[in-house]
């Protein structure tokens, strides 16, 4: 074995907690088959293949493995949505991780690709899927390389391909390199992209690709982290899995923290019990705000989530509590802003991203996103007017009608508006462009007002007198 262990794996801090998906991260050669096999690799697959597929499916169902892509739909239930007797059916792995602030899947692919491959095999076996497509974001060159190398190793060693481990189960895994579009992280847009079309979300209904997906066939789309949970789950069983975390959110979860904390990085935390305060201030996690500054705001679930302020620090990392509080956990990315943050500029940065990443298919997102960005950038440049701030809400109303979720705030006397929002768009990109504007303007309106130039109009008649 060539590699030693990392003191601290780059971007990742292990801490003293149960680890399910990051157990190998401490090894420098964690991405090799040799290391993987030496650390219980492909044992979950052996266990799975030794049992009937329905058994394995039930095991996953019993463990309530929540989807880690953002929506939090239980994977076992998702697999059950495929219509009976329609062949072929596909597994598509959503490795197009592109939500701002999110970089957990990237590490899973770069540092433990075999775990993902094993997860794909178990899922395909359990749900009766005949082929697997691994869609990896175009910008993740290292992840591409590592997964490709791991796939070659796995094929050579007989873990992927025909009659895996001597069983009747065969599976091919196809690697696909994305071209770099945020919206392709949306599962139907990903399928379109995989088919060779423009990456644009499909119209709903049909709501789930499980019924009509890739090439019109039943398709399961799972997140990288979701699948990475399966090898451990099969080795240790559902009871061991559900023993970690809470009843509604069992297991662990990878969280990527970025921004103004002392130790940003990816952490595998206990699902449902860890609070944001633990995470941001805990010694084993982020160790507080940089330079001892005050926390001003944080985004709890990726760039598209409504913002929280210190008022919400004691909420646990648990969807059923974060939703009513006015935001979402999304893809597990926290962005921290300390007291030095220029809030309007921060909102502009996020909104500009979503406006730029709009695919252009539906009107509210294509026109509204850019309009928001234009107004905001004017305000940030000190050229805005009072009417501009109200106009931001008006444009938002055309994207997301009705009350938009936001956190409660004691100082401002605001009560929370619970998640989710309603939307006039096809997918979540449009609302995502509005979320930062709405949060920033609702929670920090005074900072915007300070930017508005209070110019006096020069009286024209006075000229020349």
């Amino acid at each position, binding site marked *: 074995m060539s590699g030693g262990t990392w003191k601290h794996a780059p971007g990742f801090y292990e801490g003293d907690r149960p680890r399910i998906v990051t157990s190998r991260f401490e090894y420098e050669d964690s991405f090799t088959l040799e290391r993987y096999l030496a650390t219980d690799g492909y044992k979950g697959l052996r266990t799975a293949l030794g049992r009937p597929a329905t058994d394995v499916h039930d095991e996953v169902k019993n463990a309530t493995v929540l989807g880690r892509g953002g929506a939090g739909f239980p994977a076992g239930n998702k697999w059950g949505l495929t219509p009976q007797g329609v062949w072929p059916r596909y597994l598509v792995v959503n490795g197009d991780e592109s939500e701002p602030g999110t970089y957990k899947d990237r590490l899973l692919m770069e540092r433990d690709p075999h775990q993902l491959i094993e997860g794909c095999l178990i899922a395909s076996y359990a749900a009766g899927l005949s082929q697997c497509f691994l869609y990896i974001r175009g910008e993740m060159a290292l992840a591409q390389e590592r997964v490709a190398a791991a796939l070659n190793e796995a094929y050579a060693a007989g873990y992927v391909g025909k009659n895996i481990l001597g069983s009747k189960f065969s599976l091919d895994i196809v690697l696909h390199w994305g071209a770099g579009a945020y919206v392709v992280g949306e599962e139907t847009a990903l399928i379109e992209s995989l088919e060779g079309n423009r990456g644009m979300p499909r119209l709903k209904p049909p709501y789930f690709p499980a019924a009509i997906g890739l090439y019109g066939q039943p398709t399961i789309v799972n997140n990288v982290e979701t699948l990475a949970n399966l090898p451990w789950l099969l080795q240790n069983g559902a009871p061991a899995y559900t023993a970690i975390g809470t009843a509604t959110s069992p297991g662990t979860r990878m969280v990527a923290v970025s921004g103004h904390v002392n130790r940003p990085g990816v952490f595998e935390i206990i699902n449902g019990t860890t609070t944001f305060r633990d995470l941001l201030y805990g010694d084993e996690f982020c160790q507080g705000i940089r330079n001892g500054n005050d926390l001003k705001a944080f985004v709890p679930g990726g760039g598209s989530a409504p913002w929280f302020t210190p008022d919400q620090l004691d909420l646990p990392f648990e969807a059923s509590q974060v939703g009513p509080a006015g935001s979402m956990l999304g893809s597990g990315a926290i962005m921290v802003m300390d007291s030095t943050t220029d809030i309007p500029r921060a909102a502009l940065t996020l909104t500009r991203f979503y406006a730029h990443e709009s695919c252009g298919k539906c009107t509210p997102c294509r026109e509204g996103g850019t309009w928001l960005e234009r107004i905001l950038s*004017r305000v940030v440049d000190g050229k805005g007017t009072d009417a501009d701030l109200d106009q931001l809400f008006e444009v938002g109303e055309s994207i997301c009608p009705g009350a938009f979720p936001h956190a409660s705030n004691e100082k401002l006397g605001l009560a929370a508006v619970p998640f989710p929002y309603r939307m006039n768009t096809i997918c979540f990109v449009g609302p995502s462009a509005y979320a930062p504007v709405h949060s920033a303007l609702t929670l920090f309106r005074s900072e915007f007002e300070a930017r508005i130039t209070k110019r006096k109009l020069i009286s024209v008649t006075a000229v020349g007198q």
Partner: protein
Amino acid sequence: MTTIDTNTTDAENTPPVDPNAVSITINGRTVAARKGELIIAAADRADEYIPRFCYHPRMSSVGMCRQCLVEVEGPRGPMMVVSCMTPVADGQIVRTDTPQVKRAHEGMIELLLANHPLDCPVCDKGGECPLQDQAFSHGAGESRFVEEKRHYEKPIPISDLVLLDRERCILCDRCTRFADEVAGDPLIIFTQRGNNTQVMTFPDEPFASYFSGNTVQICPVGALTATPYRFKARPWDLEQRESTCTSCSVGCRTVVQSSRDELLRFQGVDSDPVNWGWLCDRGRFNFQSTNSEDRLVTPQVKSGDSFTTVTWSEALDTVARTVRHARPGSVALIGGARGTNEDAFMWAKVADALGVTMRDAQLDDGLPASIYSYAQATIDSTCAGGTVIVVAPDLKEELPVLFLRLRDAAEKKRVRIIEVSSHQTGLTKYAWRSVQAEPGTSAAALAALLSESAVATQIQSGAVTIVAGRGNLAESANHVMAAVDAVIGAVPSATVLPALRRGNVRGALSVGLAPSDGNDTAAILEAAANGKVDCLILLGADPLSDVADADLARRGIAGAKFVVAVDTFLSPSAAHADIVLPAAAYGEKDGTTMNLEGRVTNVVQKITPRGTSRADWMIAAELLSVLGHDSSVSTLADVQRDMAKAIPGFGATTTAVAVKRDGVVVSVPVAAHSNVVTSAPPRNSYEFRLNVSRKLYDRAISTLTSPALENLAPGAQVLVNPLDLDRVGAPEGGNVRVSNNNSSLVLPVHSSPSVPRGVALVPFNQPGADIRELIRRSDSVVDVRIESI
């Protein structure tokens, strides 16, 4: 409109309960709908207008503009849904009038207008613009968008006919969807993304679709404009009447629009059994020929080498004198397929009065009229299901909208197409089986195909329709008839959809201009060449351009003692005439026409005939009276009355069709033909078998005289298989000598994988060397040598 108010259902007339019937509530009114129907379609029928831009009933929904949002009552309260994507469900409660919906509609209009240039005063669409109209009906009235709008280069040509103004575009996906889904020419797509999304062609590849004009018509803004109409009129200055296109025999419904007594635009009208609202570009834009400066406007008599203008009475006297002095049985009549049923009927009356036996509405380029004696199919019945056997010309080139319908039926997997042709056609890629047979062998190829077990199974699985037409003008029509007989022999229940192309050919053949006793155009020309025709009357017919045997046409026209040409233009044949009578063109006369299915619909007069030109039926009626026959005809209604009496099957339909968009399919009995025996001599291996086929754009007079279309003809050339091109030894595009015992000519050669080996494909009637010089109609097939020079 089938809005049903539940309170007024007549119990006695209640039809049996439809298992697919559902009932929904729109704004408190109960509306009957069918399962699977979209809310917006149900609302349309109920006269509850929901604003929309991207939705088009003849294309799949994409839900992109988000303008058609409505509220639907759901388990968690009212939900905003797009009505063009949401199917109805029994008991569904839909509201389009709540403040929330109104706010959403206003918001969407405001967003769509944010980057729209609002150059309505100089926009052709202004006045008939869905964006403009709905901005007024469903918008807030003013915009709060103060940023700089998107800027693009103002109109860029994306084809010879269509210009694109990307600033006006609201990215509704209608044109791109049409190109991909309906026309099958996905040559325009969205490029860029987000706020920079734009419709664009592929680099250096124009939007060269035969159906590009439809995108202009369905564009909900003025982003797409067509060259023939740009800046010609404002919509409120246009007057229009609904009519039927007679550019080919599909019979698409159109509206004919004019201003200041000038035709300005044709738009497709949605006729469910025929064209579904689509038109081909030739049918849409060749109205320009009606306005042409080159139209014949006065009767003219040949004196020496030039024509002298005469009055109508002088002209008709001359014609009458000539036919009176003609030897018995020496008057002949060719043509009539370009006009109305009434025109053809009245000229048939003239022929009857003169005892003319030599008459033919076709120019030896179609099929015998007995093709109408088989059990007949309609376009709908052809596309409804089963198997469609195509032994016809390239439908995309000759009957473009029929191609669209068949393509749709094949794409939606309603029918399976079996095609036998001598080169790959526009339909080939949609065909279930396509066989490229050497000319002269189509019947044998078809018989062989039918004996395959998979084909036999398919044939047995449902209705069989044969689309029959003359695909190759260098091959005897008997080969097509033999192929039809081969299918009928195998499947006696098969029906035939005759794909004869000239506008009203079926009408003309049905109302009295069908040849009898073998006296068809070829026989007439042969007789004329032998000095047996004293007076040859050409009714909008141009044998010198259209008869495939050029030598025969030349000898015939030269041999006829006196030629009368009734035409809109001085065609090459009319130029050889002794007297020319100016006829009213399409759009200048009322009447009826019959499409390839036998569907009778009306054509209308929208403008005054140019000069002193008049409708053919008037000329015929006047000639009859000059000849001393009491025709008792003074109005079109008189003609229609006589026609209804004289032509079995026409009955009372002719007046009824005048008000019905979809017309009436009539069946006129036609004598059956006796089975033909065909044979084709074997081809020498060093020779090529000639396949002469029409293209949509050629030297047809209406195309030549339409400035927008005149340069679209591909030009004379010879196409061979790439492997054969190597054998010929000529470079791509280089000149080759094409010759046989009849003649020899020089043509540029191109390679095309769609041509089978051993076959030379030459487009018909193109500018350049005339392949017809090599064709003799006595030959069952024509073989040529191709040599590099």
